[in-house]
């Protein structure tokens, strides 16, 4: 069968599966809709959390980013996994015991304040929209590249699919769809990774191949890569180029931000017990780690492949995949010295993204209208190529390419659906039911949630069709804001009984304002990297924002009144897993006590 037919077949089958699951698991009540009835098995919840968490960026872009950053890429690997340790130990079990539906629920009740709830709702909606816009764009890009439809048509189809299972099924539909999406995604990621690992090292397990010898040489993968990089004037792959303090701050901001992201936290409200909430976090990290430990291996293999294939190669002799990706605009070559060979060196070859003109050069390459830069580099490579072109570079059969298309769509759709649900819940539950219209019935609230979800999908789709140019830079926002607002407020709410309304609100507001102004100044108002405080980039400033939040909360809390007795009792209660919140004197292992 032709590759194109296979792609349609795989994508079509996966979509049919998602819609089938959605119909089977329709939500009947608000509890179904918000937290899947609170009865999701920890393994299923772990898989769903993993699919929810791993977006188009994890699936398509991460290996490429690491490939070009070398060792510094570890900040994404550690940052996006280490947060689960914080979640599992500091937040998930207690929030499950608290047992409501949303993060603003917890903030409002623990800090006995509707103002706190409104601050929380605004953060939730802002963080989630930032994220979802990028996902819809990802859906559009995968569609346009593999299914040869217009990018906007791709966004529309994606919206339609998410509409069916998010609006009908709510959290219940989303959870079981995400389980299926995880399986599609991980299979699609591992198959090419295993093939390429065998090709380069002869070892089928990428994590082990990563440390093995390159076949036919006595050099390890990393030695080979360091050698190739140095020859061409790149930094050694295993050396970092960012300052230690910046890597430290960015990693911390990503970890804490992960633990504070509302669409991740809410997943732990769906388990039946506190014990299952802890287990869910463990399984979630396990399922995430499968992809996250494979990605750096893929990054290094793909880098070797790229350097060996293109460097000093004559354009006319290059394999077919080069022309394919040149046609889709992800690669470009400018023959600066007119020798017909590709010189790949550090630095950007052209100014900005390639814009092709309708003409071919002497060697048959597509010509560009961009201004050339002064350096010797002639090759433009989009980082996404490292995952997307992998199957072709490794000469894999058509069905593997089809699988990668279905996997990329699964990654983007699962994250988009999770985020849309959080947005609709904030509106129907936190704003309407708990604030503006407390009198509405369960049925009306459910209807409001569905309307809000449909509206949110529309807005997200618009953002996908007319992407605001700043999508990539605002991702720093989502993590920075989550780190500097929610994380300290929730952590102190659980571990520090004396923390009161005044402290928490003051902390959230200062943390948020500080982080937002720093990011806005350096991302949009032309701040330069010489002006960074302590050499910390905007991506890492959430860490400082979090520290400021902690400091302000503690100071303000000590000069204002202690929280009411009822709230202190609530804190005591969430610390004990048992439903009645009672503990007994320790008993020896094996002895049973009936109270």
């Amino acid at each position, binding site marked *: 069968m032709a590759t194109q037919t296979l792609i349609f077949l795989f994508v079509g089958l996966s979509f049919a599966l998602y819609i089938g699951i959605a119909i089977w698991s329709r939500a009947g009540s608000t509890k179904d809709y918000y937290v899947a009835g609170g009865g999701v098995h920890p393994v299923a919840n772990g898989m769903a959390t993993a699919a929810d968490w791993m977006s188009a960026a994890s699936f398509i872009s991460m290996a490429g980013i690491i490939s070009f950053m070398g060792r510094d890429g570890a900040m994404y690997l550690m940052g996006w996994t280490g947060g689960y340790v914080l979640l599992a130990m500091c937040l998930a*079990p207690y929030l499950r015991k608290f047992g409501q539906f949303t993060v603003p629920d917890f903030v409002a009740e623990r800090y006995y304040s509707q103002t706190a709830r409104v601050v929380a709702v605004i953060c939730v909606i802002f963080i989630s929209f930032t994220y979802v816009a990028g996902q819809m764009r990802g859906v559009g890009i995968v569609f346009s590249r593999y299914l040869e439809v217009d990018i906007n048509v791709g966004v529309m189809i994606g919206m339609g699919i998410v509409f069916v299972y998010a609006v009908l099924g709510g959290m219940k539909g989303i959870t079981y769809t995400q389980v299926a999406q995880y399986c599609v995604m991980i299979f699609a990621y591992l198959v090419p990774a295993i093939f390429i690992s065998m090709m380069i090292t002869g070892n089928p397990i990428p994590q082990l191949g990563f440390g093995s010898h390159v076949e036919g040489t006595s050099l390890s993968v990393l030695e080979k890569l360091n050698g190739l990089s140095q020859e061409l004037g790149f930094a050694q792959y295993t050396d970092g180029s960012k300052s230690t303090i910046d890597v430290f701050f960015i990693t911390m901001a990503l970890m804490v931000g992960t633990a504070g992201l509302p669409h991740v936290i809410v997943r732990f409200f769906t388990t039946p017990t506190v014990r299952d909430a802890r287990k869910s976090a463990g399984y979630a990290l396990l399922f995430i780690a499968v992809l996250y430990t494979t990605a*750096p291996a893929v990054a290094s293999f793909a880098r070797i492949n790229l350097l060996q294939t293109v460097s000093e190669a004559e354009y006319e002799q290059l394999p077919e995949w080069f022309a394919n990706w040149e046609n889709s605009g992800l690669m470009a070559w400018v023959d600066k010295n007119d020798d017909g060979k590709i010189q790949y060196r550090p630095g950007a070859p052209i100014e900005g993204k390639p814009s092709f003109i309708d003409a071919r050069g002497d060697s048959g390459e597509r010509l560009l209208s961009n201004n050339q830069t002064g350096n010797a580099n002639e090759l433009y490579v989009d980082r996404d190529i490292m995952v997307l072109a992998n199957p072709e570079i490794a000469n894999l059969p058509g069905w593997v390419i089809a699988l990668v298309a279905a996997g990329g769509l699964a990654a983007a759709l699962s994250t988009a659906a999770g985020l849309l649900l959080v947005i609709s819940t904030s509106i129907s539950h936190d704003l309407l039911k708990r604030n503006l219209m407390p009198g509405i019935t369960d049925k009306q609230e459910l209807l409001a949630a569905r309307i809000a979800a449909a509206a949110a999908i529309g807005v997200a789709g618009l953002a996908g069709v007319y992407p605001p140019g700043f999508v990539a830079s605002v991702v720093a926002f989502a993590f920075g804001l989550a780190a500097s607002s929610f994380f300290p407020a929730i952590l102190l709410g659980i571990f520090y009984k004396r923390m009161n309304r005044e402290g928490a609100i003051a902390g959230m507001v200062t943390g948020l304002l500080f982080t937002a102004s720093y990011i806005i100044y350096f991302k949009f108002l032309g701040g330069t990297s010489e002006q960074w405080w302590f050499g910390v980039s905007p991506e890492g400033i959430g860490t400082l924002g979090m520290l400021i939040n902690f400091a302000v909360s503690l100071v303000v809390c000590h000069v204002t009144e202690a929280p009411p007795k009822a709230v202190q009792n609530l804190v005591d209660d969430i*610390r004990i897993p048992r439903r009645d919140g009672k503990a007994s004197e320790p008993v020896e*292992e094996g002895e049973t006590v009936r109270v």
Partner: protein
Amino acid sequence: MSADPSRDNQSAAAAYWRENIRILLSLLVIWFAVSFGCGILFVDQLDQISFFGFPLGFWFAQQGSIYTFLVLIFVYIGLMNRLDRKYNVQEEE
């Protein structure tokens, strides 16, 4: 057993919470030491050591820290389940 059952209950809850914090802090120290310590702060020193074809610091940064996180969470689950039973605070099945 003291005469006042509610006081008894409170001191048990406090003891449970103290032990919980101790488990938490010891695991978080490892979490920090492996990721921020081995993977970021001391990465250059560790890179002098070779580990199954990797410079050790690089391995911690791109592989080892993730495996450690996983082990930490599952150790935490085990320790907490035991602690819950010790103070009889586990949830009824």
